[in-house]
């Protein structure tokens, strides 16, 4: 039950993009087309889950016993970059199709602040191993959900008759803020 609450909490209530405002650059950058948004969501899910697990292990078994908590950000970035690099190579070898689908988005995840954000939030909330993994996966699912919804909205807004002042990124930002408002409706669903 507690694990279910973590998933629901991260996907809807504390959505990583729409209520914590992390990972906004891919949210704005790769949401022009639904397909790319899905690829990005998929790649992020993969990396975010892996990185929250490994950053938990790193923090729990290396940094905390040595009283080196202040090295967290630095070492987490190192871990994330290494995982992204490793994942890219492994996927390229094992599944060229998936590699083609994810394409350029995989390396871009290294600079996605949501990934580092989730790793740090895990430590801050002192999650256990499974909780960390679920938190990472849920956040990534929330990210994917927000990205896919936003991309679908944007595809429609692109063909809508928008006043010329609001055309392009302006209306996209307004759409994003309206989505964030809508997602606030979920707060109170779960207390996390």
């Amino acid at each position, binding site marked *: 039950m507690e694990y279910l609450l973590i998933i629901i909490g991260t996907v809807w209530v504390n959505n990583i993009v729409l209520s914590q405002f992390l990972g906004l650059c891919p949210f704005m950058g790769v949401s022009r087309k639904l397909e790319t948004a899905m690829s990005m969501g998929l790649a992020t899910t993969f990396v975010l889950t892996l990185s929250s697990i490994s950053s938990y292990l790193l923090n729990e078994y*290396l940094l905390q016993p040595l009283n080196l908590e202040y*090295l967290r950000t630095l070492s987490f970035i*190192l871990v994330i970059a290494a995982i992204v690099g490793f994942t890219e*190579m492994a996927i390229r070898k094992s599944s060229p199709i998936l590699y083609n689908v994810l394409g350029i988005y995989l390396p871009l995840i290294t600079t996605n602040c949501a990934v580092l954000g989730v790793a740090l939030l895990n430590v801050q909330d002192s999650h256990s191993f499974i909780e960390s993994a679920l938190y990472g996966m849920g956040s990534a699912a929330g990210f994917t959900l927000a990205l896919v919804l936003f991309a679908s909205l944007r595809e429609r807004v692109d063909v809508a008759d928008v006043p010329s002042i609001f055309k392009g990124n302006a209306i996209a930002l307004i759409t994003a803020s309206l989505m964030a408002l809508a997602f606030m409706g979920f707060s109170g669903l779960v207390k996390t």
Partner: protein
Amino acid sequence: MLSAILVITGIAIFFGLLLGYAAIRFKVEGEPITDELDAALPQTQCGQCTYAGCRPYAEAMAAGEADINQCPPGGEATIQQLADILGVEAKPLSEEHSENANEELMVAKIIEEDCIGCTLCIRACPVDAIVGASKQMHTVIESECTGCDLCLPPCPVDCIEMIPANRGVDKWQWPEPLSIPVVVEKLI
């Protein structure tokens, strides 16, 4: 202080080794045959082979999905090269991909008094053989044109026509003799 340096160095070395190992372990042999085939193709990206460009066609050939005789801009010479690379016998350009390739080489010509300067054909041209600017007359650089026909569909006023290429007297060739299939009898 020292432990911090050691830990960060340790992590960095660990991941460095991991990535180094992964680079060797997951090395993708970049399918050299595809690269070779791709290099042999004319890179006009015209799509007359029914693939999206030269690279996809090369991949399809490497995978054995496509025949070697589907590239009209390359003509006989390219087919010969592809046949050498793949170790198969060269064959004439396939009928369905040839259209006008069996005849003379064609080039596009813009009927200049009809051109409205929309730049659509410039964008369509895979080899940048059309010059012009918005609301200015466009024209085709004949020596660059590969005769791929891609500029015909986008033209809103149908002012592009295909004419036989005038390659000058030094480029003129005798019509090639019909190819006679050679049958090699098996000796064993």
